[in-house]
């Protein structure tokens, strides 16, 4: 039995927030809504929760039409970006509140509050008030309150966005492990590709109110159906270059013609857009087949364990992602290389033609 979103459209005045979306979520699955700000993630969640009513279409749960039923009568819990707790209640009472409303027996409440508090590692803080907690602890409390009642639908709208990155990293992994053990349908909205990849499950990519692609997270990542999806699901953004295929050769921009190999062999002659993931662009040659671009270094950005080198090639801004921390000088001329087997190919309208084969080599 599942949740079915059937041709749902949401208009607010003349603005279309959700455009004819159909989706199905199975119990016990983890589902990510991935998209930029204003892509429709929150709008869709509000419709699923029953906070808003769709302009067109239906929402069914286990075959039953829920469309007009208010949020109070639905079996749903939601966690927001802001840490929302009752300021006058202790952590214990905050977590217990949905069970009290549902008139669960006190003994059962106590058992469940302590259990979920332990999972979220706030069991030592049960007597504190929300304003005596750090941001991370406040959000753990809000998540505990959403988890304590085994709702059939659990919605999380960018729950980690207001926390600092190390806390985010830890909570992501904890949440993934907690949800694995549940039978609820979990729906989680995020703008961050890395968050989607860490959480796994399925991903629905949204763009301006449209559903662009839905599938297992790693499949969507490895085989994006359009340049738009590739853009939304790549951090740093995917690099693009126009190119031509003619009589068995490939030319990317003004590079030297290269022979067609692997997944490119079947391509008809013509013009295409080629996508290159930042981690597939290299600043040293890695194989004799590599295609070489002349570029200029713009800025090297450094995360804790990786370097993102922004380079410019014929007016295109590209990013190279390298493992480890490396220093580069701004303005320096440098060659960048791509192995053609790693090229994503799209037509000039941005639709997928072919993605790199994902033949993995076993570790030895």
């Amino acid at each position: 039995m599942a949740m079915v979103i059937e041709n749902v459209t949401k208009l607010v005045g003349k603005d279309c927030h959700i455009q004819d979306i159909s989706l199905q979520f199975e119990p016990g699955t983890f589902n990510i809504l991935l998209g930029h700000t204003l892509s429709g993630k929150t709008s869709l969640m509000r419709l699923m929760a029953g906070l808003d009513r769709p302009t067109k279409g239906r929402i069914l749960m286990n075959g039953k039409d829920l469309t007009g039923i208010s949020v109070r009568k639905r079996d749903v819990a939601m966690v927001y970006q802001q840490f929302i707790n009752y300021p006058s209640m202790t952590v214990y009472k905050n977590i217990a509140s949905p069970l009290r409303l549902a008139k669960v027996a006190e003994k059962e409440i106590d058992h469940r509050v302590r259990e979920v508090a332990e999972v979220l590692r706030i069991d030592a803080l049960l007597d504190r008030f929300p304003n005596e907690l750090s941001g991370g602890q406040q959000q753990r409390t809000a998540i505990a309150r959403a988890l304590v009642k085994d709702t059939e639908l659990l919605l999380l709208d960018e729950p980690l966005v207001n926390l600092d990155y190390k806390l985010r990293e830890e909570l992501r992994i904890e949440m993934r492990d907690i949800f694995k053990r549940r039978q609820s349908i979990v729906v989680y909205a995020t703008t961050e590709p890395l968050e989607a990849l860490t959480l796994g499950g399925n991903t629905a990519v949204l763009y301006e109110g449209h559903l662009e692609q839905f599938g297992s997270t790693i499949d969507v990542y490895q085989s994006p159906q359009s340049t738009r999806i590739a853009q939304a699901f790549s951090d740093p953004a995917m690099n693009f270059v126009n190119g031509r295929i003619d009589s068995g050769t490939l030319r990317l921009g003004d590079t030297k013609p290269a022979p067609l190999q692997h997944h490119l062999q079947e391509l008809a002659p013509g013009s295409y857009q080629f996508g290159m993931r930042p981690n597939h662009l290299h600043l040293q040659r890695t194989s004799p087949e590599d295609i070489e671009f002349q570029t200029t270094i713009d800025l090297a950005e450094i995360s804790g364990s990786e370097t993102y080198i922004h380079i410019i090639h014929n007016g295109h801004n590209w990013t190279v992602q390298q493992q480890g921390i490396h220093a580069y000088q701004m303005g320096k001329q440098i060659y960048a290389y791509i192995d053609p087997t790693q090229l994503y190919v799209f037509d000039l309208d941005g639709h997928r033609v072919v993605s790199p084969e994902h033949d993995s080599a076993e570790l030895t």
Partner: protein
Amino acid sequence: MARIELNNIAHSYIANPRSDADYALRKMDHIWEDGHAYALLGPSGCGKTTLLNIISGLVKPSEGKVLFDGKDVSALLPQERNIAQVFQFPVIYDTMTVFDNLAFPLRNRNVPAAEIQERVKEVSEMLELDNVLHKRAANLSADAKQKISLGRGLVRSDVAAILFDEPLTVIDPHLKLMLRRKLKQIHTRFKLTMVYVTHDQLEALTFADQVVVMNEGQVLQIGSPQELFESPQHTFVGYFIGSPGMNFIPCQMDNGNARIANLKIHVGASSKNLKGDFELGIRPEFLKLRKKQENDTLPVTISEVEDMGTSKIVTVNLADHTLKVKVEENREITFDEGFLEFPPEWIRIYADGDLVETGMEKSPDTLELTE
């Protein structure tokens, strides 16, 4: 620009501090060299803003002195210290034009009109504000207003230092990259003394040539991004910098080897004099997971493989300890039991959280080779 010296500085917001925990900033000594870009990085509550406010004069430290180019400024107010500050939210005059906003700090100091023209032109071009110079600030977007704030911070050429307190927080993500680049370019070009507070790792490591990592009121390491990554001086730095953070395993050191349960890891000759209980640290990027046993590999069981798109994070168990290993994206892990190699040059040894030994790097052999 100036050299800023913090002389035995400590600060407590409590009247009579008794223990270390009462201090927002524990005793420290540091010299901020003229012309360098520093970032203060740490989790919320680590004391980074207190430290910035001590340099600016917004907070008078309960202990110690602040010197600018050797001159004691401890008793001076922020406006008497000749510094420029940029805050999290735009601080501008809404009714003035962009030009007048940028010119304001210069006019205040009676800079000649011709020089004002020149400086405002230069700064506005740098920040791409030159096409809105004669618009009123009130009508501009939040991003543009924050750019004016940055411009006001940068317009004076005679300041001792420019202090930034989370200046890019309100900036839209796609503009952040542009401004990070601008700040970096400005620093490279003008060699200003800059101190930058942020909790954003990418911002801190990109902006600064020296990063100050803080936790619980203590400075744990001051170093280049590369030093923080390759040789964290403290286990907290190893954990805080990098995703996932560094792995740490308790071990016994004996004759240049680290013992973990009945397993032995070769660390290097330079650690020969270490004896007893330590922690071995190694980053997930430097561990090597193999299917077959080789020399100097240890048996592990694999408990999880996460595909992160650009790489895989493998969780392995080694004698009851959990470690993370980063593996290339196109590697298939088809086995449950494997072997882990600890390249000695990337092993770090810690005692009570502090780095005591950096693997083979400093061993006599390597030193001879580099000389």
